[in-house]
């Protein structure tokens, strides 16, 4: 692994703590905590759209997205760190307001600096959104 020797560089434990803090904040819908984690120049890219969005656009999407679902959790997290960031592979488990459930695997590659995330690139399969399962009895 290449070592980032800049003053803003983060250690492996710092990157892992930041990664878990980020997913925990997303899970409990703590937008203030997510805002604190995103660097001022944060940018977001996802393979579904192929376009970048800004920090404010992404936070707006998160706020609006929470209203669409009863619950969303980020499970089975596998985290690896590299010189300037982390890779997280995980399962997104969602429960819709009518009780239907869906689960799909995803991964993000995050660039980090000085305790914050500066960029996220996310990969998933959108066809999984169309296959919700009925609520378990």
């Amino acid at each position, binding site marked *: *692994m*290449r070592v980032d020797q800049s003053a803003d560089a983060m250690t492996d434990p710092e990157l892992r703590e930041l990664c878990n803090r980020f997913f925990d904040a997303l899970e409990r819908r703590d937008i203030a905590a997510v805002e604190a984690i995103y660097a001022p120049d944060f940018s977001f890219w996802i*393979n*579904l759209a*192929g376009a970048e969005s800004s920090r404010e656009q992404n936070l707006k999407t998160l706020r609006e997205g929470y209203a669409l679902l009863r619950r969303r959790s980020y499970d089975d997290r596998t985290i*690896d*760190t*590299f*010189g*300037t*960031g982390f*890779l997280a*592979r995980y399962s997104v488990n969602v429960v819709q307001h009518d009780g239907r459930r869906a689960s*799909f*695997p*995803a*991964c993000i*590659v995050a660039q980090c600096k000085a305790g914050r995330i500066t960029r996220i*690139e996310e*990969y*998933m*399969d*959108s*066809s999984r959104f169309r296959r919700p399962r009925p609520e378990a009895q």
Partner: protein
Amino acid sequence: MTDGEIRELCKRFFDAYENRRIDELAEIYAPDCVIWHNVFNREMSGAENLAALPKSYGGQRRRTYDDRTINTFDGGFVIQYTLAGVQHNGHKGALWICIVALCRDGKITRIDEYMDSSKFAAWAGRPRDGEKRNEA
């Protein structure tokens, strides 16, 4: 493996894929190599993957693995890239893909691949489900 060794293995792997060098890929996969794909959410062995490649390669005139961004971690690499394809009818398409590979003793032991299957139709120049082909 060192950062340099892992990067070299990653480049060799993608160059072999691009050049349709199945013999080289067989050298790169460890005997116990497992390949998992997010679209199907199931695993296949390296041997199963190699056996499927001739038919897979036959689907396009050319494929290139471009815009490669590689980061290494202890025991592997993550690569983000654009898969550019030219179909036999000349249609060109691109997919954005991320692969996470675990490596050991100069070989790849596991690949996890992430992509969006809703882009497959556009990549291949086919109409999407529910769409009609716009033909002159």
